[in-house]
C-alpha cells in the first residue's frame, strides 16, 4: 500500500549497539506497512550527547556524517523522539545547507510517521499484558506527540492511539502522566543523585499500577528506568513501543 | 545618582531589541459567566470569605449598634454623610480595631476580589489592621474579570487602591493554609 515510499531508517547509536531488537522491530513494522526501507550503513550518532552538554561546536563531524547518510530520502524515520528532535532542531552542514534543511523537515519519530504520514488505522499486533506508558519529554514536549499536562489544550496522544490498536493490551497511566524519568543525556552521570531519584520515582509510579511492562517512544528513558528496575530486582520490564506494535503472538 | 539614571537608560537604549507591537486584547476571547453574583460568591467563599445577600443596607444598622454597645472598637465608614468620625491616628491605637465596615468599589466575579481605594477607606491602614473586615458592595457593580474591572476603574487617580480577595492568609508553614496572617482574620461581604 505504501510501496513507493522510500524510507531511510535512522537507528541511533546506542540502539544500534545495545538495543538491536528495537531497530529490528522498527524495520519489520515499517516493511509490514509497505514501506521500502533502507538502512544507511555508515550512520553513527546525531550529535545530541555533545550538543546537550554544550559542545555543539565540536560535533560538526557528526552532522556531516548524518547528512551524507540520509541525503536523498523522502522520509527519515527513527525509533527515538529525542534523537529525531535533535536532528529537527539542530542539524547543520555548512557545505550542504539545503540537504541539511531537507533532512530537518523530513525526519520523523516512528509513531508520528505511522499516524501522520502512513495514516495507520489498524495494526495486526497483540500484546496481552499490563503496560505503563512513559511519555518521553522530547517526543512529547518537543515533537508534540501528545498533549501536555501543563497546557490548556485538547487531549490527544499518538503513542496511545497506536497502542490502542494492539489486541489484548491493558494500558495503565501513572499518576504523574508526563514527568521526566531523569535520564537527560549526560545529566544522568553528571547529576547522578537527582537523576537516579527521578528515575526511582518514575518507576515507583508505574509499579503502583502493577504493570508488567513500561513502554515509550525513547529507548534512552527506557534504558534509564531499566537500569533502576534491574538494580532493584523488579519484575517489571521495559520495552520500546516498536516492539509492542510489531508483536504478533 | 542622576549619573546612574543616564547610564542605565543609555545601556537600555543600546541593548533593547527592535520595537515589538502591543497585543490587541479582545474581550470576546475572555471567559464570561451567566450569573455574576453566583460566580463572585462561589469564588469568595472558596478563598475564605463569607457572603451575605442584603435587601437593604439599613439592615446593618442594628448589627453595628450591637457591636458598639458590646464595647467593641468598631469603625463604620458606610454612610458617607455621617460626618467626620474620630479615627485614631496611630497604628498602635488602630491595632485594637475589631471591626471595620466599609463600602467596596468594583467586585470581580472571576476571583472574588473587591477594589477599594483612598476615598472608600479614609485611612489606608484600616482594612488591613482590623481583625474583621466587612465590605458592602452593590450587585450591579460586579464585573466578570479583571479586564472588565480595570475598564470600569478607568484612570485611577487616587493615591492608593487595592483589590482585596478574602481574609489575609498564609501557607508558609508546611503548606498548611492558615487564615489570618497579618491582615484581617475574616472578610464578610454584603451584597446589596
Amino acid at each position, binding site marked *: 500500500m505504501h510501496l513507493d515510499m522510500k524510507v531511510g531508517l535512522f537507528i541511533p547509536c546506542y540502539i544500534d549497539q545495545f538495543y538491536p531488537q528495537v531497530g529490528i522491530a522498527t524495520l519489520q513494522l515499517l516493511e509490514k506497512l509497505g514501506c521500502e526501507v533502507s538502512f544507511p550503513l555508515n550512520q553513527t550518532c546525531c550529535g545530541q550527547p*555533545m550538543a546537550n552538554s*554544550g559542545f555543539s561546536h565540536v560535533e560538526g563531524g557528526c552532522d556531516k556524517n548524518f547528512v551524507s547518510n540520509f541525503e536523498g530520502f523522502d522520509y527519515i524515520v527513527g525509533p527515538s523522539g529525542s534523537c529525531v528532535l535533535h536532528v529537527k532542531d539542530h542539524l547543520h552542514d555548512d557545505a550542504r545547507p539545503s540537504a541539511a534543511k531537507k533532512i530537518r523537515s523530513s525526519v520523523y519519530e516512528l509513531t508520528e510517521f505511522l499516524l501522520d504520514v502512513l495514516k495507520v488505522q489498524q495494526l495486526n499486533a497483540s500484546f496481552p499484558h499490563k503496560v505503563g506508558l512513559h511519555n518521553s519529554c522530547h517526543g512529547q514536549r518537543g515533537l508534540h506527540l501528545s498533549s501536555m499536562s501543563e497546557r490548556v489544550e485538547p487531549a490527544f496522544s499518538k503513542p496511545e492511539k497506536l497502542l490502542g490498536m494492539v489486541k489484548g493490551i491493558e494500558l495503565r497511566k501513572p499518576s504523574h502522566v508526563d514527568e521526566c524519568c531523569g535520564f537527560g543525556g549526560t*545529566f544522568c552521570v553528571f547529576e547522578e543523585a537527582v537523576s537516579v531519584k527521578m528515575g526511582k520515582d518514575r518507576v515507583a509510579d508505574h509499579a503502583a499500577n502493577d504493570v508488567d511492562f513500561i513502554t515509550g517512544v525513547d529507548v534512552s528513558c527506557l534504558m534509564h528506568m531499566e537500569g533502576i528496575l534491574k538494580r532493584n530486582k523488579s519484575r517489571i520490564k521495559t520495552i520500546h513501543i516498536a516492539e509492542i506494535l510489531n508483536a504478533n503472538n | 545618582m542622576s549619573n546612574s539614571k543616564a547610564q542605565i537608560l543609555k545601556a537600555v537604549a543600546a541593548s533593547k531589541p527592535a520595537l515589538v507591537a502591543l497585543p490587541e486584547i479582545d474581550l470576546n476571547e475572555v471567559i464570561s459567566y451567566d450569573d455574576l453574583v453566583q460566580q463572585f460568591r462561589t469564588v469568595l467563599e472558596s478563598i475564605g470569605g463569607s457572603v451575605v445577600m442584603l435587601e437593604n443596607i439599613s439592615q446593618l444598622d442594628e448589627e453595628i449598634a450591637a457591636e458598639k454597645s458590646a464595647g467593641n472598637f468598631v469603625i463604620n465608614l458606610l454612610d458617607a454623610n455621617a460626618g467626620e468620625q474620630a479615627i485614631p491616628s496611630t497604628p498602635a491605637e488602630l491595632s485594637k480595631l475589631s471591626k471595620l465596615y466599609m463600602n467596596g468599589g468594583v467586585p470581580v466575579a472571576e476571583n472574588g476580589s473587591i477594589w477599594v481605594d483612598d476615598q472608600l477607606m479614609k485611612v489606608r491602614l484600616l482594612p488591613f489592621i482590623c481583625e474583621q473586615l466587612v465590605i458592602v458592595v452593590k450587585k450591579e457593580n460586579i464585573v466578570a474579570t*479583571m479586564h472588565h474591572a480595570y475598564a470600569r476603574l478607568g484612570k485611577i487617580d487616587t493615591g492608593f487602591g487595592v483589590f482585596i480577595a478574602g481574609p489575609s492568609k498564609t501557607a508558609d508553614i508546611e503548606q498548611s493554609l492558615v487564615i489570618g496572617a497579618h491582615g484581617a482574620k475574616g472578610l464578610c461581604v454584603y451584597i446589596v
Partner: protein
Amino acid sequence: MKNHAALSEAFISNEPRTDWHNETLWFVRQKRDKSAHSLPEWEKLREWASQIKNHSLSNLDFYLNQFEEQAVANGVKVHWAANAEEHNQIVLGIIRENKLSRIVKSKSMLTEECHLNHFLQDQGVEVVDTDLGERIVQFRKEPPSHIVLPAIHLKKSDVSETFHEHLQTEKGNNDPQYLTAAARVHLRNKFVESEVAITGVNFAVAESGAVVVCTNEGNADMGVHAAGIHIACMGIEKIIPKTKHLAVFLRLLARSATGQPITTYSSHFMKPRPGQQMHFVIVDNGRSKQLGLPDFRNSLKCIRCAACFNTCPVFRRSGGYSYHTAVAGPIGSILNPGFDIKAYSDLPFASTLCGSCSNVCPVKINIHEQLWKWRQEIAKQGHVSFIKKVSMQGMAFVLARPGIYRFSGKAGRWVMRNLPFLVNNKLNPWYKQREMPAPPKQSFRDWYLQNQQEKN
C-alpha cells in the same frame, strides 16, 4: 563552592525529606493546573502577557522615563541604582538621613539579590522580614529556598523549634495555626512600631507611575501604611505600559504561583499619604546587559511566580539551596549565568531539558531552550570540567568516523560481556545505583547485514 550536583546529593541523602519536598511542590503544581484549566483563554492570556512584556522590553528606556515622570508628579522620590551596591547605599542613605532604626520589609527578590539585609546589618541597621516564611528563615539565619514559598524546605517541627527559641512558643507545639498566631502577635508589634517599610514591586505602570505589590498575608500593606517612609525596590524589567495590562498579569500571577485566582491583596501605590515619604529605587544590576543578549533577553520577562520551580522535576528533588543563588529553579538557571557565567556555570546543566518549565511559564519564556543555549556559551568559554571537555571531544571524534565508531562499539560490548568489572565499578556514576544495559553480541547493523545476505 560546591556545585549543584554536589549540593543536590546532600539534599537527597535525606530521602523522606526529599519525597516530602517533591510531593508538596507537586501539589502546588496541580493546584496551578486546576486553576489554569478553569480559564478557556489561558493560553491566549499567556500569549498576551508574553507580547506585552516583549513590547515593554523593546521600548524600555521610554517607559522608564515615563514611569519616573509620573511617579515624581505623584510626589514620589525616584532613585536609580546601576548595581547592588548603589541600591544598598540608596536605601541606607534614606534610613540614615531620617535617623530611623525600626525597619520592616516584605518580600523582595531584588533585595535578596542585592543582599540588602546583610549589608544593612553590617551597618548596624536591623531589618525585620515580615512575610511569615521569610521571618522563619531570617530567625534561622538562612536565605529563602524558594521565591514564593521561602520556608518550603522546612517542616513544621523545624518552625516550632525556631519559634520556641525566638518567640518563646510552647516546645513541641507544631500546630501551624498556633505558630502562625504567635508570628502574627510578634509581627504586629513590629508593624505598629515601624518607621520604614521596604517592599518589592510586582509591576510598575509607566502611564500612571504606580507600583503594584501582591501579598496574601497583608504584610506589605501593614508595613507601608503604618510607617512614615515607604521604599519600594524594583528591577528595571518590572515596567509595563498601561494600567489595563495589570489585568493580564494579575490573572496569571497567582494562578501560576499557587493556584489561587488572585492574591489576597493586590495593592496599587500611587501617592504617599499625607506626611508620608514614598521612594522608588530602580535597579539595573546586570539587567541591561542581559537585555543586550538576543538569545537570553526574554528571561527578563519573568514575573517571579515560581511555576517553573514547582513543575521542575529537578528542583523538587534538589531543593532551593542547591542553586546557591537568590532566584533558583529553572528561571534562576538562565538569569544567573547572564550576571556571572563562571559562578553559575553549573546551573544550566541542572536540568534534563524536559521542557515543562517553558510550558507553565505565564509569560512564555523559552526557559529550556535558553538552558541549552547557555550550555553552548559555557562550554565555548571553557567553564566546564576537564573531564567533560575531553570526553565530549573524544566522543565527537569517534562518532564522526563510522569505522572507528563500529570498532569501539564492538570492543565496548565485548569488554562489557567479558570484563564487566571494567565498566561496572564505582568510577562509573551510572553503575552506582543502576545496572548497565546487557550488551548484545550483534549490533543492529551486524544483524541487518546478515539478514540482507540471508534474504538474497
